[in-house]
């Protein structure tokens, strides 16, 4: 994408189950698809174990020998590099972390989480990526209610990790999602206030904001100085107000199990009935001369190649961005 | 034998596109799936050309050596029979170099009878007994059927019925939800045909989608039912969209103005509108004996549809028939 904004594409939508997207030729096909759609930079998502070998730093290195080896692998498909990597310390990593459940909301877990971040920080720096994108806190239904102190404690963990990322020359971006215990605009702002602007930024995901009831355009305009990373995707639904608190919301809400039977929440840009005003949001980014990565993704929503192509079409024809 | 009721499953759902489901190993897996899901028979759908190996007797012969050879293949998959063949005369025949045939055109009558004879001729060898036909075109594609037209159509199906009867095969008129016979034309045609050779094919899904309660049809024409298809309907054409031209495409395939994603599914599907236990009970009470062919029509996942339908038949419908029969005997 030839633009003043820098565009990347997220690979997460290909890795929809534990035993898929494992073979190198499958990964090459995804990378070529992304490349053919006009993106030469990708975002990675974290995972665990031997079948997540384009997700977990240690396993990527085991596959490709070194950071350079991995970049060579990407370049075989004309993908030039990695913009960023997503990591959720609350997601138990079976193989690397002994399946321990930890939460930034629990002070006793802070040291372990800071320790766990190290392979990610090293990897992000090693492959020349700019941002470590993180889930700042676990799901609301699993977390006791947070008061101001609680949010401050979470901020402290990220300040500590922010020191590590800064020392390695990369950014740390907190990624709000619609299930997180930091849920309202006020809570999110409090979390930003609790972190050091010099080392910790916000990853603004347009669909997650919209589902969670925060208008992404307004919030961006008010906090543009803190936004260091963007996930651009669309949704057709918003939380009715408290679905995110349902036990097992990852499945009861986002897979339609116990709620409104909405079995798919996230959509490609330009989807019919999409709630995100993508055009206005991108215009706001341009107004503020946003300089970070804009990562397009479609999360888990059907055929990955089809969604990548529809996203590319939207960028080219609705936003008028030349592909090359 | 379940009061003379036998259960089959229709093959059509396995072939969503013309170049799908062409290879022998795919047929074998589908037939084995139907068998292990608890069905005795399979219903074929008429088709033409080399990518329709199960479409007509000539293709069966080209692929399996002979109709008998196909029968062995079916029985090798542990199915007892091909229950029936569904035939819409508007489908062309590459084998005979003919275009669409119409039951309303007197000139087509000899060809119609000949084609029916050919399909019916193959059925007994395959253990089958019914030729299921589309009796008239869609409502949007023909002028409203007047007395003359109905007379010609009735004469056509009587002739066809006599021809298939020579092979011991019943001709059953299948009224779908787009049919020009929807609503009150059904009796108009049925009453003009010879009950000895022409019967009705009751399709629960098509009737329901057409706004007709299958139970009323059973109570009115129970003695004329020669074949039954069980599929579920997920929506009803309440706005009479079936009257539009090319409704096959615009309404059936695309879903009409409301863009119904899917009109039909296997019995018992989520959101299904048909009360299958009630229909089954009514059929038993009406003394129906013959095939009930279960269908999903199209399916995003054919094997799953067959298994889910098998579940309903095994656990609910078949036991229900036993109970009804015992009650009747007592």
């Amino acid at each position, binding site marked *: 994408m030839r633009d003043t904004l820098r565009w990347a594409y997220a690979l997460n939508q290909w890795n929809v189950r534990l035993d898929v997207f494992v073979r190198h*030729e499958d990964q090459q*096909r995804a990378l*070529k*698809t992304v*490349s*053919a*759609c*006009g993106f030469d930079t990708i975002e990675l998502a974290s995972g665990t174990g031997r079948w997540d070998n384009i997700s977990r730093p240690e396993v990527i290195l085991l596959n490709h020998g070194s950071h350079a080896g991995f970049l060579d692998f990407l370049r075989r*498909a*004309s993908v030039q590099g990695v913009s960023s990597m997503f990591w959720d310390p609350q997601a138990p990593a079976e193989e690397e972390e002994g399946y321990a459940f930890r939460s930034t909301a629990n002070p006793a877990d802070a040291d372990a989480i800071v320790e766990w971040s190290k392979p990610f920080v090293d990897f992000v720096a090693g492959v020349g990526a700019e941002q470590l994108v993180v889930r700042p806190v676990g799901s609301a239904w699993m977390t006791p209610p947070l008061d101001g102190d609680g949010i401050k404690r979470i901020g402290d963990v990220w300040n500590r990790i922010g020191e590590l990322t800064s020392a390695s020359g990369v950014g740390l971006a907190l990624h709000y999602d619609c299930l997180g215990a930091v849920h309202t605009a006020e809570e999110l702002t409090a979390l930003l206030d609790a972190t050091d602007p010099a080392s910790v930024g916000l990853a603004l995901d347009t669909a997650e904001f919209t589902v969670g009831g925060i208008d992404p355009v307004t919030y961006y305009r008010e906090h543009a100085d803190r936004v260091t990373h963007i996930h651009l995707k669309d949704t057709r639904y918003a939380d009715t107000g408290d679905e995110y608190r349902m036990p097992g919301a990852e499945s009861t809400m986002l897979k339609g199990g116990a709620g409104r039977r909405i079995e798919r929440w996230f959509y490609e840009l330009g989807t019919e009935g999409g709630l995100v005003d993508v055009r206005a949001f991108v215009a706001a980014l341009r107004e503020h001369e946003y300089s970070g990565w804009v990562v397009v993704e479609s999360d888990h929503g*059907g*055929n*990955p*190649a*089809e969604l*990548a*192509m*529809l*996203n*590319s*079409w939207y960028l*080219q*024809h609705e936003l008028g961005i030349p*592909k090359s | 034998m379940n009061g003379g009721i036998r259960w089959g499953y229709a093959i059509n*759902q396995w072939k*969503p*596109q013309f*170049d*799908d489901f*062409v*290879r*022998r190993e795919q047929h074998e897996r589908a037939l084995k799936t139907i068998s292990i899901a608890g069905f005795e028979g399979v219903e074929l759908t008429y088709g033409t*050309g*080399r*990518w329709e*190996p199960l479409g007509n007797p000539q*293709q069966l012969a*080209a*692929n399996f050596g002979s109709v008998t050879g196909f029968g062995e293949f079916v029985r090798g998959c542990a199915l007892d029979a091909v229950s029936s063949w569904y035939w819409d005369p508007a489908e062309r025949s*590459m084998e005979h*170099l003919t275009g669409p045939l119409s039951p309303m055109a007197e000139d087509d009558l000899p060809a119609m009878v000949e084609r029916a004879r050919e399909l019916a001729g193959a059925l007994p060898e395959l253990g089958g007994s019914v030729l299921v036909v589309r009796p008239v075109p869609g409502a949007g594609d023909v002028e409203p059927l007047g007395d003359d037209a109905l007379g010609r159509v009735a004469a056509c199906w009587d002739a066809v019925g006599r021809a298939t009867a020579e092979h011991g095969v019943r001709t059953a008129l299948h009224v779908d939800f787009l049919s020009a016979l929807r609503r009150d034309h059904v009796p108009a045609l049925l009453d003009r045909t010879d009950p000895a050779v022409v019967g009705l094919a009751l399709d629960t899904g098509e009737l329901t989608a057409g706004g007709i309660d299958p139970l009323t049809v059973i109570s009115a024409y129970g003695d004329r039912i020669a074949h039954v298809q069980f599929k579920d309907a997920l929506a009803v054409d309440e706005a009479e969209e079936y009257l539009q031209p*090319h409704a096959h*495409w615009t309404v059936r*395939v*695309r879903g009409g103005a409301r*863009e119904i*994603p*899917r009109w*039909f599914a296997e019995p018992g599907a989520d959101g299904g509108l048909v009360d299958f236990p009630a229909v089954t009970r009514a059929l038993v009470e009406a003394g129906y004996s013959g095939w009930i062919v279960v269908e999903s*029509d*199209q*399916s*995003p996942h*054919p094997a799953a549809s067959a298994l889910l339908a098998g579940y309903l038949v095994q656990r609910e419908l078949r036991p229900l028939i036993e109970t009804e029969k015992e009650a009747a005997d007592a």
Partner: protein
Amino acid sequence: MNQQNIKWSYMDHWRSNGPSGPVDQWHSHKTMSAFLKQIKATGFDAIDTFDFRIWQMYGDYGGPAKYQEMVQDNGLERIVNTFHAADYDVRNYAPHIPATHEYILEDFRVTMGRWSEIQLDNIIVMPATLYYDMEPVTEDKLKYTAECWNKVGEITAGFGVKLTCHHEFFCGIQSEADIETFYSYTDPQYVSLFVDTAQHCIAGVDPVALYNRHAHRVSGFHFKDTRNVATGDDHRHRPDSEIMAPTTGKWFYEMGTDQGLVDFAAMMTAVRDNGYRGWISVEHDKANKEGGDYSESTAISRWYAKNVLEEIYR
């Protein structure tokens, strides 16, 4: 962009998954729109289509010109070629049987009239019946076939469209010797060659050498790949070779596939060295067989065109 010699067109085989099973792009305006967007997104410039789609063009879109407007609304230039998929039958439609020629000629008069509201480059035909319906392939039969297409070519030329022949591996004219004989009897003014890389490769014919020999009358290409050469009776398997050959469940793959047999680098070099300018069509029919996916195959093939082939010649 404006200096390029080669533009890419997509031959519109396509399937996607719908709520009631796999559908093609003609299923609805929505599925058509999603199809065209995806083709455009990967950088194709145009599409090719099939003759039998003309009914849907008239029925759903108001004719080929209106349909082409929709194609253009999605950023593609136009419809470049159409493929005439006829029911070959020795009783009424067999180029090697002169008694059927008048029927064939009439078919083309009607067909070209239907297309006349837009400007096509080529109408593509399989020049012979299925192999088993033509064998033994004699010199006479090749000659009759050539005569037939010479006359058809004259009709299509009257509409400003080239008649071009696409040699399926399972059709009557697929061996190198028969192809050469066939072209020796056809008039270069009226009959062109359309090189399908995979079909020739499957038939054991080197598509690059074939192209080099006939470059002056090649009017287009299907760039697609295969992993198998036909063996034994694959090319004359009854009733069908394309889907039913016992040796091979899937013949066609998108270019850029692993284990592909076509040497596309050599092909593109030949395209360059022969000074070919114009459209190359990308095709991968039946990409969805055995778990494949059209969207992905389309992206991969366009990736390959951009990153490998355009480096050779653009």
